[in-house]
């Protein structure tokens, strides 16, 4: 099981350590630093590293490394999932998961870690249970605490801890009862040079924000549930109901949570909302090249495509770029060689384009690789898969809640090869 945890920042300082069994010396992290050095890029550090006596399993999040030390055979996914959960909890408690936030709240962090893991076994990882045990810091509370001498540690057993619905606490009360659902779909796609789709799929999630009093029992049904054949559920969902009736039936956790995530992969269902015309060329034996990209709408179901950003990792030999956008702004970072073009909205009358010259290091050979374009965009009021919520019913409570569903489609890992 998980032995110890080290938090390491980007400059390689270990700024927090926690041991659940005996103390493991910090020097074990040297193996991690070694791997980090070898990997060159922080994102390329292998997640599982073996050392003579331990295994180091790490994740990289928000510019921090969470490095756990284990000694026995443990499912690595278990450890990785747990580490992400730790990061999520920090995010949840402190609003951000950063070195500063953690250092500012080091005692709460320590208490949290102790609550989350016992002897290496996860104890309480549900946010609402943790919040009953250890109250999140607020300015008001710390002022009150320092005056009254009360503490931010709950002294009663959290109600959800042992019930069959550990995700919900008892006695929830709201004056305004609301249930909102966000259907968010991300398109992951690889488009090849000629514009045809090599690979495309939709990663969708339904995030919920439920503020309902008491013990509401909800069922959410869809117009076209057949779309959802590859789904991962929050533990609150009754699987049997879904299997038999294709209805999501659940007693929700209180607050924000991810209800389901799903994947739509059959090619014909995945519409590609934008196309990119591109012409990036480097001349042989000369120190310049041409760069020309134009973006246009494709299957956008009549909605506006907005928030478009194009990022391009230019080859190393590119020194600078002199470009003119017809709309939006562009920046080129000569150190990281990343070109970012903030396009904004597409208006079909005048397609946005970015043209100009590329300056190359003189004397260097013409770059072999063609840069891929990474596209970001957003379409409001549309779930690109066509998924539609039919209705939401509530049982078990008498009041009438406010209900709402919002759809949005975004680009996920959307890449255009050139």
């Amino acid at each position, binding site marked *: 099981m998980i032995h110890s945890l080290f938090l390491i920042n980007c400059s390689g300082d270990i700024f927090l350590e926690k041991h659940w069994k005996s103390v493991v010396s910090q020097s074990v992290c040297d193996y991690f630093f070694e791997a980090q050095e070898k990997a060159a890029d922080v994102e390329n550090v292998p*997640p599982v590293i073996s050392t003579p006596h331990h295994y180091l399993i790490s994740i990289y999040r928000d510019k921090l490394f969470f490095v756990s030390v284990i000694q026995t055979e443990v499912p690595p996914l278990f450890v990785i999932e747990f580490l992400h959960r730790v990061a999520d909890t920090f995010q949840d408690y402190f609003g951000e998961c950063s070195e500063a936030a953690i250092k500012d709240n080091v005692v709460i962090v320590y208490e949290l870690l102790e609550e989350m893991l016992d*002897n290496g076994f996860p104890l309480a990882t549900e946010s609402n249970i943790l919040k009953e045990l250890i109250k999140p810091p607020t300015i008001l509370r710390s002022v009150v605490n320092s005056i009254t001498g009360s503490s931010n540690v709950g002294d009663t057993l959290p109600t959800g801890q042992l019930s069959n619905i550990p995700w919900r606490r008892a006695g929830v009360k709201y004056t305004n009862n609301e249930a909102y659902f966000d259907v968010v779909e991300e398109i992951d796609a690889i488009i090849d040079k000629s514009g045809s789709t*090599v690979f495309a799929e939709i990663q969708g999630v339904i995030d919920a924000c439920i503020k309902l009093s008491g013990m509401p029992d909800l069922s959410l049904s869809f117009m076209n549930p057949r779309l959802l054949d590859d789904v991962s559920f929050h533990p609150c969902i009754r699987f049997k109901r879904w299997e038999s009736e294709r209805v999501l039936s659940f007693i929700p956790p209180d607050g924000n949570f991810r209800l389901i995530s799903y994947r739509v992969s059959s090619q014909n269902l995945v519409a590609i909302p934008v196309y990119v015309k591109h012409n990036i060329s480097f001349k042989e034996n000369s120190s310049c090249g041409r760069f020309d990209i134009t973006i246009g709408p494709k299957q956008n179901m009549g909605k506006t495509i907005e928030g478009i950003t194009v990022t391009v990792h230019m080859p190393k030999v590119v020194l600078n770029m002199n470009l003119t956008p017809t709309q939006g702004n562009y920046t080129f970072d000569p150190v990281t060689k990343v070109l970012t073009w903030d396009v904004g909205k597409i208006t079909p009358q005048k397609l946005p384009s970015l043209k100009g010259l590329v300056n190359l290091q003189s004397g260097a050979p013409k770059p072999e690789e063609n840069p891929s374009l990474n596209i970001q965009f957003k379409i409001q009021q549309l779930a690109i898969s066509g998924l539609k919520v039919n209705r939401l019913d509530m049982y078990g409570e008498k009041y009438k809640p406010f209900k709402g569903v919002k759809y949005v489609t975004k680009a996920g890992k959307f890449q255009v090869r050139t």
Partner: protein
Amino acid sequence: MTDSKYFTTTKKGEIFELKAELNSDKKEKKKEAVKKVIASMTVGKDVSALFPDVVNCMQTDNLELKKLVYLYLMNYAKSQPDMAIMAVNTFVKDCEDPNPLIRALAVRTMGCIRVDKITEYLCEPLRKCLKDEDPYVRKTAAVCVAKLHDINAQLVEDQGFLDTLKDLISDSNPMVVANAVAALSEIAESHPSSNLLDLNPQSINKLLTALNECTEWGQIFILDCLANYTPKDDREAQSICERVTPRLSHANSAVVLSAVKVLMKFMEMLSKDLDYYGTLLKKLAPPLVTLLSAEPELQYVALRNINLIVQKRPEILKHEMKVFFVKYNDPIYVKLEKLDIMIRLASQANIAQVLAELKEYATEVDVDFVRKAVRAIGRCAIKVEQSAERCVSTLLDLIQTKVNYVVQEAIVVIKDIFRKYPNKYESVIATLCENLDSLDEPEARAAMIWIVGEYAERIDNADELLESFLEGFHDESTQVQLQLLTAIVKLFLKKPTETQELVQQVLSLATQDSDNPDLRDRGYIYWRLLSTDPVAAKEVVLAEKPLISEETDLIEPTLLDELICYIGTLASVYHKPPSAFVEGGRGVVHKSLPPRTASSESTESPETAPAGAPPGEQPDVIPAQGDLLGDLLNLDLGPPVSGPPLATTSVQMGAVDLLGGGLDSLVCPGPLWIGGPNFVAPPAAAVPASLGAPIGSGLSDLFDLTSGVGTLSGSYVAPKAVWLPAMKAKGLEISGTFTRQVGSISMDLQLTNKALQVMTDFAIQFNRNSFGLAPAAPLQVHAPLSPNQTVEISLPLNTVGSVMKMEPLNNLQVAVKNNIDVFYFSTLYPLHILFVEDGKMDRQMFLATWKDIPNENEAQFQIRDCPLNAEAVSSKLQSSNIFTIAKRNVEGQDMLYQSLKLTNGIWVLAELRIQPGNPSFTVRLSLKCRAPEVSQHVYQAYETILKN
């Protein structure tokens, strides 16, 4: 107001100040001080000196303060055991507190204090807490048993905590069940023999019920525990699978992968004809694919596991190729894994897409990745024959880019393509030669030299090209040197007139100026071959090369099966069994897939591997018998060989190819060399003057390594039996037997004339039979056979006669004619006379083939009363051309992996399991063959050979 203030220090000793604050009367100040202490602890600062002061703060009603003090205690109690005793009273008192939170906290903290004196006091409170009315306390106590066991195992056993823990599996609260399972699993891991998790259908049922209700982490523990259970039949396996499948939709990827493990394992027990089997296969794909949309770290672990799953059951993901396409901003470790799986999934159906992708990757920035992509194109060419042409042209396009490392990788793989498809793509040689100068990596240089040597007759300036390499001979790496030596010898054999000087130069460079024994030895071998018998040299060096296998890097089947049982664990990430790397080893239990047991069949006790294999002894790949020699000689590049070297007549024992193809065949085990007539005592004149005695002895030393492995004695010969009694053949009695000696089969006949007249004009004919056995020469009885005379004749046989499947398979109908009449009889020949001398399969090939042959074709036999050890078995079988490819020891059993080939080219693979201590001397034999009908007869052959 943030906690960072706790880090600020003052000039006057920090510890000193803290001490003062800790002893303050004010509660608030105390708490702040403890927080400061904890803050220092989090950054690894030593604050153990404050121990007594902190412990003094322990008796408080303030839960937060209490928790903080407990945190401190856990960290430092070990370094201050005497002081820690001071805390015991408070702990014991807290264990009686009315608040379950405090009871649980106390028992939990006590378990974390790893001090012997404290653990003694822990027993009573722990016993109470295990039976506490509050499930929260019970579940905390369950984990505490595991902690205590880690500190003092004996104590836990003596106090009977293990039994209490086992009882908790039946607890009404699912969380308690999950924690009890987790604790028991952890204890069981350190005591594999303890049989703690003695699972039976009842307890399984309880676990399955708890599975639905406990937290995600609990589900992982329960699933991992379920995976260790062996259902009694396929029906039970199916019902467990049905109850586990909903877990595949869980949001926690670790739950999903643990569920996949259970399903993959139990699927082994289901018959493929079941509808449910197909349903299950379909259900497995989506969750695996979903794992790939998670964070990169999760993807990595998932991909390592998918790699195993794809090898075990390729059908699950065969339609999901696209999800493995690489995105340019994937981390490198994800990219490389995806590429590996893409090649495994490549088939004729999707090869076009795959190639287009690979070509795209070959222009990426990351050098390692580009190299692997280029290599992958070569692997596709070898794997999917229809695509070979397209692959080659893609590779040529890449060579045109002139990017140095791309060109070099491409040349390395093109060499393999030449091996796989000889005489098909040689037109590209010219293009390759253009890039000769840019090659600076040994592997690429060696590959290029191999190509030049191999196709010397088609390259006009081959001698110039090779000569150019020769200039810097001593600066080259060993593999290039060896390659160059072989290539020049090949060139000499092909164009002897122009290249005499060159060959002499290289031989003297290799034998006289080199410190490398392998190079010297190979030089001497060539030298002697060339100087004694150039014809033999030609046949040796230019012999036909064995084919290379399609799949590379396959995991050995038994290891793969074991790893499938470890899906989701570290073992699955490293692709090694836990015994190979888990710290301390502590006698890891080997897991094996359950055998398929239909409910209708008699329930034979399922074979579960016993524990107790000494840790660390088990190698992670099969060591081949020839490893020693392989290590010595196999320093050059070697593509996997699909078949053994082909025998030719000039050198006995099929030693032929070992120098010719040059590359890999040197791994062939030793016996091939022994008895090469020219080597044993070379005529003095033939030895070049410079090769004195020391060289000769060097060579024989090398041969000594292997001597005794094989001898020239032929296969086992059964005593003659009467085939045709005199009664039935008017006085002619025929008895006989079959023999096989050095590649030729013969029928040894004994003809006795029991009649009163002289017999003449003998002739023999065979009816068509299963393996095309036919007399290779007429039956020659030189003198007339007078009454009461007996004559012994050896009739040479070949296997080129007409073929008809007989029943039984090895039935042979014979007609013998003499001056009196024609007589018919039939006899059964032992199958081992058909085992050919080149029946030794390459290891890689063996693995690939074993995997490739469907499980239905596997036949299991037992050979009883065979008191031989593995060595004896192996050498006995070897003399009958059953070759041991690898041997290993698993849990005290010797496992032999063997191959043999029949005259008609059918390969039979065998796994022989010998248990030295077994009183009944039973040897288990599993045979796999594409033609399963021969298995029975091969088994009989095994039995006859082993028992004689």
